[in-house]
């Protein structure tokens, strides 16, 4: 009998203990303040810390709050779960950077039915959004990488070029690679020999690069439009003594984890766009959408009069707001991009 009582007691106490921490998360005063939830591809990618920082600047300027929500590992299903959950929390605005353009659409539509305003940023979905806040057009991003790589190959670019991408299913990367290949094809001496995948994983990107350099001993250049794949590519090249310009590299990633390889000359064409500005404009656009200032139709525009990046941002015919151009990082300017 006594043992039964003890068991009941322990179970009761332990259950309470298990759930206590959560109990302390009492409901925050559900203010009617504007809130933006940014649904990102993966919570460990530093790139999205930069976009969040931009949105926070905007939030300071016009009020409201913003938070990042992303799966620990890039996964379409996890993003769908997150969007659904946010919709049920009745967050007024949700900005999504889809890792799968199709999978998020039903969830985004559901969120709209529940009253949220939904838009996409960084990467587009195949539907279900009024407009897409784009850092730069995919075409521009791909071609920019190609131009930088070609430039580093000298006046008469010759040889084999390979691509190290993220997941095979990554939509952004696939668009950029298409543009990159198109640009490269304009040069007779250059051939794209292979595309390998690093799966957003340093180890896999590293091993794939090592295999590339063995397989193509005369490889001239690598295009790696992936973060954190790019630093892994650079590290791998140094490891097989083909760094410091022996094989030219171009690609995009955040400076905080890549700058070292740009400074030591392993990465020649190191570029990105301004992710802080991307987050900044996304926040303004989301706020305008929630306030009813815009419906998201092509031709509408938002105007930022005061603030960090004032200007007029127009929704284009393709349903995109393009916030800028690719930016090349150099030894002189990289410190200005603190992300």
């Amino acid at each position, binding site marked *: 009998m006594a043992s039964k009582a003890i068991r009941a007691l322990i179970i009761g106490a332990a259950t309470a203990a298990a759930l206590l921490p959560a109990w302390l998360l009492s409901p925050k005063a559900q203010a009617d303040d504007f809130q933006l939830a940014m649904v990102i591809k*993966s*919570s*460990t*990618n*530093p790139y*999205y*810390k930069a976009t969040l920082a931009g949105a926070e600047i905007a939030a300071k300027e016009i009020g409201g709050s913003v938070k*990042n929500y992303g799966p*620990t*590992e890039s996964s379409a299903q996890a993003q769908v779960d997150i969007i659904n959950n946010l919709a049920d929390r009745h967050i007024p605005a949700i900005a999504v950077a889809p890792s799968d353009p199709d999978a998020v659409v039903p969830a985004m539509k559901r969120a709209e039915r529940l009253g949220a305003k939904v838009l996409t940023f960084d990467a587009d979905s195949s539907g279900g959004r009024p407009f897409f806040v784009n850092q730069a057009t995919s075409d521009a991003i791909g071609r920019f990488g190609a131009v930088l790589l070609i430039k580093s190959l000298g006046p008469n670019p010759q040889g084999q070029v390979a691509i190290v991408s993220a997941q*095979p299913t990554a939509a952004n990367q696939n668009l950029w690679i298409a543009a990159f290949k198109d640009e490269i094809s304009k040069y007779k001496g250059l051939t794209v020999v292979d595309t*390998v*995948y690093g799966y957003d*994983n*340093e*180890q896999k990107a*590293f*091993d*794939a690069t*090592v*295999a*590339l350099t*063995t*397989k193509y*001993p005369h490889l001239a250049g690598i295009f790696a439009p992936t973060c*954190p794949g790019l*630093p*892994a590519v*650079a*590290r791998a090249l140094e*490891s*097989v*003594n083909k760094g410091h310009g022996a094989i030219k590299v171009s690609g995009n990633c955040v400076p*905080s*984890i*890549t*700058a*070292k*390889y740009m400074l030591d000359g392993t990465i020649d064409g190191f570029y990105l766009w301004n992710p802080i500005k991307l987050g900044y404009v996304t926040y303004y656009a989301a706020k305008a959408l929630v306030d009813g200032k815009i419906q998201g139709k092509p031709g509408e525009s938002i105007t930022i009069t005061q603030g960090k990046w004032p200007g007029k941002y127009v929704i284009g015919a393709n349903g995109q707001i393009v916030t800028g151009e690719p930016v090349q990082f150099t030894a002189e300017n990289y410190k200005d991009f603190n992300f």
Partner: protein
Amino acid sequence: MTGIGSGPGRLARSRQGGVLARLLRVRELALIFALAIICAAVTLREPRFLESANLEQVALSATLVCIVALGQALIIIARQIDLSVGAMVATGAFVSADWLSVHPHASILWVALIGCVVGGLLGAGNALLVAGLRIPAIVATLGTLAIYRGGIIALAGGRQISATVLPDSYGHIAEIHILGLSLLVWLAIGLTCALGWMARFTRFGRNLYALGSNPEGARFAGIAVRRHIAGVFILSGVLCGLVGVLWGARFGTVDAVIAPDLQLQTISSAVVGGVSIFGGSGSVFGAALGSIIFAVLQNGVQLIGVSQFWLQAIIGAAILGTVIFYSRLARRAERSERRSRLARSRS
């Protein structure tokens, strides 16, 4: 068929069969044979596989998995399993790199120590659940896998620690060469030999085999079962912490999601290396060979121009192939054993 791990003199015991069959009885030799075939096949398609630069990279990528697989092999030999190794590596790597980025002038040995201590603590967490609270290892480490991984991601808060903020001396660990071989490779060889020696020549090691072979019997024989299980989990944790430190040195960048499927890689390495999933037999040398085979396969598939999409399928087929091969081998050995017993009893 238990491999050389179950004691010396295995070779002397093989009686029947041809030379080849006899050699194949010792799983490690069968593995070396398989490895040679794979290497030959890859070389035939792509001779550059044998270039020293490439071989060194293969050895290096085997190294990190190998060290973790050593601990995993000992755990499996003791009839347990550790699913949390990847999360422990990530935690060890991140915590030690984070500390180093704050103390860039600290000795690299301190960093290694911190990594090992962090890993050891996490291993002790597993040990507490498995040996202390008697939760089955597969379930307990499934839980700690989530807790450790979630914990380090939360702690990291989306940060990555890159070579940019780390001192160069850290990254140079991976480039130190002794007698033409990388320090990391030497470390893996040293650890393999040390743990192999431990498994064969210390009571702790032999007791692990004993309690994997017959846990109840181990208790009756006066072996402190729980202390041994706790010990081997802590050992695995320490090895993971160490690998975390090396991880950062090799790849230059550390974040909280590194080594996502290390548990499957190490378990596969151990199993392909001849460690019985039911415990009691196998050796750390086998597990080390297993990790090399996977590294060669990985590199080979990318070299011979097969699309990368085939890699997973080939790895899966390799695992299935080896375990089926082992089971045929064991069955044949059993049959011949029975036949010879019969012959002896009839004579």
